[in-house]
């Protein structure tokens, strides 16, 4: 005969106003197996918990049902209280009287009746509960960081500085990401490269960091604390141990007209190349798509000139396996293509450029060495128009969200232009100026007031070329929607920030969720901003949504702190709510017949084959075995098992049937 205690919480008025809690407790007291029942205003409060603890001790309870809010809210709270009173925590269950009853029904007898039924179901379940012990899983204290932009660099350094090993994977030949392409950064105008490149070097030299550039994640399996990552090291076509980075090959390569990705298409590079002089690692790769040798089998100039004979045309992609305990995803963002606003003429007019291209023009390491010269003829533009919100906040043609960084970088661009071209005229067409951030508004005011940038509030309808000028037709909404026409020499489009190419595919590989724009989703937008719904995988930076540098770095450090916290534990404690295959005495051993239907059904590859041997080592039987570290407790295998040999701990068939039958019984 079990001795169950039932505790009905009023949850202030949340339950108490709709459900007659005293009546529920009274009804519970007469249920079979219930030794004690009571109600209280706030069961989760200290006096409430004490009430439960005292009742357990006083009445020697062997099971507890708390009728309260959702188990997602306070199951851990009440189980902890039970444990403190000496009861196995898994003998405590929550009857959800709030979300499942009081919140969704009006006040009345029927509602109270339903509450009683819910409690009855749980009482029947608890009568069949058995004590469980948490599972301890070891943790591999090594992190994988995917993406070597500023977010990945920051996260990798922070984790490495906590004394843990880090593997940093970057798909480009160099780390640095978008930040390495920027000229100067708002709101302080400090040089992007000057603050970034030392960190890139630190990554390369850190004893705890293993850097794989020109590499991508192939697949990820396993679970928190115990992931296995397959990483594809794309063939660089050079032997890195021999290459000294002298750069002779890049000067001799005859393919010199490939648009440079680093310069956003404004400069040219060779087929064997280092993306930029400050690249880390500073060793070239061969772009197979453009290399004459790979296309025609001829050339091979680089091979001939290389003083250390480091060129390896025959090199192939290599896949390596790495065991890691946590993953930080920092794959960044992309700049939206411009083809959906053809009225701005991007692609048709050489002097209509994107914000990222302007960064390259303004950068000391760019194609013009920092001089603002327009792409078509290299002249210094006397009049430049900047258009904010190109694609952002435009549900009809672009994306509905705000790209967040454009207001600030556009103000910076206009300011840099005014600093570099004295006597130049600049115009910014904008919808709103969103300058929320430390010293941001002051920065924009400085552009307007000190650098005399002309801010025009209105949209641009069309840009067309006439007699060598770009005619920008727009409207000034602060002057009563007056049409404005500006004859510009160059136009800069603040194109929308979008998710990176391949982000959807990567999310599927990692089993993490993403939003409709293919940005990775955080577990909670406010309270768990760097965690994902998959335990052990964290996100940071602009792969979540467009972010500026300070925010990116903050989330990266946040994710690193989460990883460090995980690694600070000796091992991982997991809920024992996992599937188990039954075992019995010889000669049966188990009712499992070894059909392994469960193995095909399991989405987590948690089911293994186990051989049962006799004393001489002869295999008597092969049965299924659940790896409790991998099992997520979904129960699919239970439904598939033909011989009913698998059950879910804490949610056994017997328990579930008892709960359902109790509900039906009360109704009748």
């Amino acid at each position, binding site marked *: 005969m079990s001795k169950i205690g039932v505790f009905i919480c009023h949850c202030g008025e949340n339950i108490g106003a709709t459900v007659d809690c005293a009546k529920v407790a009274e009804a519970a007291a007469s249920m079979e197996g219930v030794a004690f029942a009571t109600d209280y205003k706030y069961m989760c409060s200290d006096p409430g918990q004490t009430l439960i603890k005292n009742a357990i001790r006083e009445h020697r309870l062997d099971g507890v049902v708390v009728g309260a809010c959702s188990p997602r809210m306070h199951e851990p709270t009440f189980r902890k209280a039970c444990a403190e009173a000496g009861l196995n925590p898994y003998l405590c269950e929550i009857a959800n009287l709030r979300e499942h009853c009081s919140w969704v029904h009006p006040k009345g007898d029927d509602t109270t009746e339903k509450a009683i039924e819910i409690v009855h179901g749980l009482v029947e379940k608890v009568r069949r509960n058995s004590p469980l012990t948490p599972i301890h899983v070891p943790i591999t204290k090594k992190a994988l960081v995917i993406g070597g932009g500023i977010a990945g660099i920051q996260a990798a350094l922070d984790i490495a500085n906590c004394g843990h090993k880090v593997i940093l994977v970057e798909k480009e030949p160099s780390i640095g990401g978008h930040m390495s392409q920027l000229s100067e950064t708002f709101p302080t105008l400090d040089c992007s490269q000057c603050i970034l490149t030392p960190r890139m070097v630190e990554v390369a030299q850190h004893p705890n960091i293993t850097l794989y550039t020109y590499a991508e994640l192939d697949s990820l399996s396993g679970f928190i604390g115990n992931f296995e990552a397959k990483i594809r090291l794309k063939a660089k076509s050079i032997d890195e141990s021999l290459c000294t980075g002298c750069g002779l090959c890049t000067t001799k390569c005859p393919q010199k007209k490939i648009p440079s990705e680093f310069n956003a298409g404004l400069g040219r590079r060779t087929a064997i190349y280092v993306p930029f002089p400050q690249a880390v690692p500073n060793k070239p790769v061969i772009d197979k798509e453009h290399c004459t040798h790979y296309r025609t089998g001829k050339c091979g100039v680089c091979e001939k000139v290389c003083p250390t004979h480091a060129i390896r045309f025959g090199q192939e992609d290599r896949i390596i396996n790495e065991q890691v305990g946590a993953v930080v995803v920092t794959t960044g963002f992309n700049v939206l293509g411009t083809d959906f606003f*053809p*009225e701005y003429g991007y692609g048709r007019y050489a002097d209509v450029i994107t914000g990222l291209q302007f960064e390259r023009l303004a950068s000391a390491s760019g194609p013009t060495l920092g001089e603002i010269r327009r792409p078509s003829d290299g002249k210094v533009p006397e009049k430049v128009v900047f258009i904010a919100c190109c694609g952002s906040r435009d549900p*009809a043609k672009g994306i509905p969200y705000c790209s967040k960084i454009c207001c600030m970088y556009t103000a910076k661009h206009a300011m840099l232009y005014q600093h570099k071209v004295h006597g130049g005229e600049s115009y910014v067409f904008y919808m709103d100026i969103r300058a929320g951030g430390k010293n941001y508004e002051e920065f924009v005011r400085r552009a307007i007031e000190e650098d005399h940038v002309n801010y025009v509030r209105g949209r641009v309808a*069309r840009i*067309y*070329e006439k007699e060598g000028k770009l005619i920008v037709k727009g409207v000034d909404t602060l002057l009563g929607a007056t049409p404005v026409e500006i004859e510009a020499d160059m136009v800069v489009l603040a194109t929308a920030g979008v998710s990176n190419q391949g982000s959807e595919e990567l999310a599927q590989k990692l089993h993490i969720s993403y939003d409709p724009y293919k940005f990775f989703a955080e577990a909670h937008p406010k309270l768990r901003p760097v965690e994902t719904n998959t335990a052990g995988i964290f996100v940071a930076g602009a792969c979540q949504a467009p972010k500026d540098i300070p925010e990116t770095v903050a989330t990266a450090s946040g994710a690193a702190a989460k990883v460090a916290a995980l690694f600070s534990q000796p091992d991982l404690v997991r809920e024992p709510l996992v599937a188990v295959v039954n075992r019995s005495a010889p000669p049966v051993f188990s009712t499992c017949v070894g059909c392994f239907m469960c193995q095909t059904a399991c989405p987590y590859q948690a089911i293994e084959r186990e051989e049962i041997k006799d004393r001489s080592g002869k295999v008597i039987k092969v049965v299924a075995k659940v790896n409790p570290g991998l099992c997520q407790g979904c129960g699919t295998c239970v439904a598939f098992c033909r011989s009913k040999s698998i059950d879910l701990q804490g949610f056994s068939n017997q328990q579930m049937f008892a709960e359902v039958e109790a509900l039906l019984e009360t109704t009748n």
Partner: protein
Amino acid sequence: MNTGFYPGCSLNGTSREYNESVRAVAAELGLKLTEIDDWNCCGATAAHSMSRELSVALPARVLALAERQGFDEVLVPCASCYNRLSVAAHELARDEELAAKVGAAVGMAYSGKVRIVNVLQYLQEHAAQLLPGKIRHNFAHRVACYYGCLLVRPHKVLGFDRLEDPQSMDGMMRAIGAEPIDWAFKTECCGAGLSVSRTDLVGKLSANILGDARDRGAEAVVVACPMCHSNLDMRRTAINKCLDEPTDIPVLYITQAIGLALGLSRKALGLQRHIVEVKLQ
């Protein structure tokens, strides 16, 4: 495919040559067009500036007739009629209350089955594949394809072509050997209904269009809208007042250009009806 034909008022009045050329091109290509029996005015600009209900009821009657007469789609060459019919269908599908009211007023229900197509869609879908064997001589001219406001806007309702840089007419022109130019006024307003009350304004707006087409070396402007045509063709005196140099660039309906390529007579295409003479062959 049973295609109904809704000419609307303009095609029986100021733009008879549009009517003639659409029918002539269809006939030459062996495409059957059946005029909707007992059609009425779409309400044009007047109805929707007075009453929303009326502006939906008038096109709704046309659509209900088309549906009752068993047409799968209805060709609406006039851009304004096309726009009004499309807007009405859009609103009827989204507002049950309005649909009930309008249905009662019209005396016929419209279930929304008839597809509304403009002349560019019709040509693309039905004529384009027939053209290669039928072209007698290429219409080898540089042309400015002018779409105006109503063929592509509002995009949410029409969902036709690219909003700011439509391409369908350019494609059709290439198909008959013409060379569409890249220009800036494809979808700018010609002044439309202000033609009577503010001819000066129409002169200015239309001058921007013709001036740019001429400056970029177009030999003709091609249109698919009676209103645009009448402004660009008929208001030439007012337009020339706004230009540094007067222009005699002709304005053709797309079906006239195609008709010329098909070797149809100038009379069959109504080319003699233009104010500005069309000398192109």
